[in-house]
């Protein structure tokens, strides 16, 4: 039946109206919308290409995580065997495996019991799987402990989770609006920060591991001699963070690590007025630091950040209060950044920037203007052409397309979707295509009129016959849009979103709104012939 019942008509009008109204919050000021309940605060988010900002994709160094995991097993083996007083030789790391040879074959059983305890079930004690973190194999007196691949993957996953938390703390310190930080795939983190003029500082904050250690300087050997190649096994050579890069011989043993810090603040030295970073340890850290400084008065210790020596002051007196300060040729900015990094904590593994896309606010504004311009002109051209071709029915089509576009904005708001420049292109394209459904219907009506049907008959036949074609032809494009959504990121995904939503609203308006408009008109005017 061509006409709708009153209830159906009301349902159609109501649906279209409600969906259109979802776009309403976009036209209000942010303040007004903020006072609304949370569920009503839905609006379109402008993509980074329109409002400017940085998209940065980071990758966790999974090799470092792997290496660290295996090395910690090696350290555990050393500790366990020492505690059990079992003699061993040749403790080495080979790939994912730690090898150790037990001296006395009589102590093998005892050693194996202790070593097997190192292997934990994966996913906690409650996990149902029999998968364990370490495989232990015995070959005579040689024991091989292999870290299993699932255990390494688990550790990488944990590293990414920790990194995300730390990155959040760091980025929030920048005071930007609505940063987005999320996991991508197994070992990646996506950071999107809108409205940044210059991402250099952001990248510096993201790129630093910020592993801070307090260690003693090894005074048994001069750095110049050590560089020649004679480094004590308990020490290593590290260089200063500022140019010129001077070498230091630093003990490997860590007195206190940055993990024991509870606070760090930038400030100024009262005597020299140089920028400094003051810090405070937690109770355990304070106790250890007090003890270490008491034992080593008169000797230099080093503050090491990411394997670079920030400063190496001489301990003049024991530091008991649990607080101290770092000075070391800081600028106000770098002291501030170091304080942020120390407060946020160290990353479990280094992060590498593998993709960066930054759009300045100027280009974003220009893109919005260009997008609007193209949309207005494109829409105007289509509107004029439709009226020229179909007259009154062209106006009907234009009303349907206007409702269609309003509904696209409504759905985008409802989904809190991101609008990008290609997304705007998708909407403009939808305007061009949405009239196609009307064209299909109208051309069919023209045909039916030529075939000699009466006005109402021709309209009815035109609508019902064109609908299956409209569905078929739109589904093919929808498949393309769905694939695009799946493979695309950022702006391209924005295009897929508006294209896909546009297709759905187009099919909806073609099936309901256009028909309702025409049916209402027919009821009202009772035409003898169709004016198209």
């Amino acid at each position: 039946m061509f006409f709708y019942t009153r209830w159906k008509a009301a349902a159609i009008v109501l649906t279209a109206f409600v969906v259109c109204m979802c776009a309403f919050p976009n036209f209000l000021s942010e303040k007004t919308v903020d006072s609304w309940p949370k569920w009503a605060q839905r609006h379109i988010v402008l993509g980074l290409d329109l409002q400017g900002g940085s998209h940065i994709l980071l990758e966790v160094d999974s090799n470092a995580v792997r290496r660290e995991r295996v090395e910690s097993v090696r350290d555990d083996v050393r500790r366990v065997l020492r505690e059990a007083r079992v003699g061993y030789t040749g403790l080495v790391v080979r790939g994912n495996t730690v090898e150790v040879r037990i001296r006395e074959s009589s102590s093998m059983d005892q050693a194996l019991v202790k070593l097997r305890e190192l292997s934990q079930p994966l996913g906690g004690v409650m996990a149902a799987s029999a998968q364990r973190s370490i495989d232990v194999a015995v070959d005579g007196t040689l024991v091989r402990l292999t870290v299993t691949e699932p255990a390494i993957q688990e550790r990488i996953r944990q590293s990414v989770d920790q990194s995300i938390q730390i990155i959040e703390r760091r980025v929030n310190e920048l005071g930007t609006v609505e940063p987005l930080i999320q996991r991508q795939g197994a070992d990646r983190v996506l950071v999107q920060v809108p409205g940044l003029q210059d991402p250099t500082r952001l990248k510096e904050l993201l790129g630093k591991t910020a592993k801070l250690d307090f260690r003693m300087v090894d005074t048994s050997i001069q750095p110049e001699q050590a560089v020649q190649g004679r480094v004590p096994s308990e020490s290593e050579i590290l260089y200063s963070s500022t140019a010129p890069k001077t070498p230091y011989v630093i003990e490997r043993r860590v007195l206190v690590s940055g993990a024991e810090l509870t606070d760090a603040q930038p400030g100024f030295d009262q005597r020299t007025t140089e920028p400094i970073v003051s810090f405070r340890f937690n109770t355990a850290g304070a106790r250890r630091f007090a003890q270490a400084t008491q034992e080593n008065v008169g000797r230099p210790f080093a503050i090491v950040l990411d394997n670079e020596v920030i400063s190496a002051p001489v301990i003049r007196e024991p530091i008991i209060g649990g607080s101290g300060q770092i000075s070391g040729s800081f600028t106000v900015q770098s002291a501030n950044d170091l304080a942020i990094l120390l407060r946020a904590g160290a990353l479990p593994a280094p992060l590498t920037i593998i993709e960066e896309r930054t759009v300045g606010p100027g280009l974003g504004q220009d893109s919005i203007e260009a997008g609007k311009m193209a949309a207005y002109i494109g829409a105007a051209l289509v509107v004029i052409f439709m009226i020229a071709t179909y007259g009154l029915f062209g106006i009907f089509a234009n009303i349907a397309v206007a409702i269609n576009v309003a509904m696209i904005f409504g759905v985008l708001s409802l989904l809190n979707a991101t609008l990008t420049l290609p997304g705007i292109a998708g909407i403009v394209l939808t305007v061009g295509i949405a009239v196609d459904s009307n064209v299909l219907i109208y051309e069919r009506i023209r045909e039916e009129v030529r075939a000699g049907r009466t006005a109402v008959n021709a309209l009815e036949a035109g609508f019902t016959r064109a609908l299956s074609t409209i569905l078929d032809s739109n589904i093919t494009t929808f498949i393309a849009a769905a694939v695009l959504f799946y493979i695309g990121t950022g702006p391209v995904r924005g295009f897929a979103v508006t294209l896909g939503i546009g297709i759905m609203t187009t099919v909806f308006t073609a099936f309901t709104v256009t028909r309702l408009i025409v049916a209402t008109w027919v009821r009202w005017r009772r035409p003898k012939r169709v004016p198209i």
Partner: protein
Amino acid sequence: MRLLRIVPDDTKFDFMRFRRISFPISALASILAIALYFFMGLNFGIDFRGGTLLEVRSLSGPADIAKMRASLTALDLGEVQLQQFGGPSDVLIRIAEQPGGDTAQQAAVQKVRAALGTDVEYRRVEVVGPRVSNELLSYGVIGLGLAILGILIYLWFRFEWQFALGAMLANVHDLVLTLGFMALFQIDFDITSIAALLTILGYSLNDTVVIYDRIREMLRRYKRMPMPDMLNASINSTLSRSIITHVTTSLALLALYLFGGTAIHSFAATMLFGVVLVGTYTSIFIAAPILIYLGVGYGREHGRESDDEKKVRP
């Protein structure tokens, strides 16, 4: 008001006669496109090749590209391309992927920033590392493949297999020609181009499906009409719609091409070529006649027509 009739109501154009011309033309054009693809190559953008792209605007009037080039070449970053982009003060800088992985890319950007100084505004900076570019390329190729497969399956369900195959052949031919066009004009081939190609695929099929729908309808209604006549009648009866829809789509795309800004210029150009020029031609001159070769309506030529069927013959 007299309404516009782009296609007269009683158009009975004999499209099928052109298949002896259109098929060789398409074959030739496809070969040409593939040759262009191999000899000129696609102009891969940084999405697929890795590297750095900077769009800068000189803050002191028109940009001195020669001076910029000199100072950037001195940095020893390998291949550096500069090109005016949009207005006279806007310059697009492309830097090839640096050896030494992702960290080296970032270091290169820092060097460029230092070299160009504070006289420029950085409107856009894109750095794509080697791993990401490889992934984007494989995503793009997989995406195109998936879309083709998905649509093929859909059409196979909705029509007979000959229709699905015919539509696919016709529209892969669209993609080949569009790639040739992109090679000829050295349009940046990046992830946005994949978006353009997928859209072209979707809309060319849209058009083909409309004609196929009509062919299917007529196949059921006129059991004995010879195939070429039936295809002609189907194309003629949907011709007005094809033309009108392509006018409206072109109007929308033209507005995007002329006013949509530099960022989507090549996107709009590619779509204009693919959707408007190639898509329409393919649906009418390739997708419909190919059905004859795929064996749809085999044996109809020898049948006898009823009077009713004679009326719709051209």
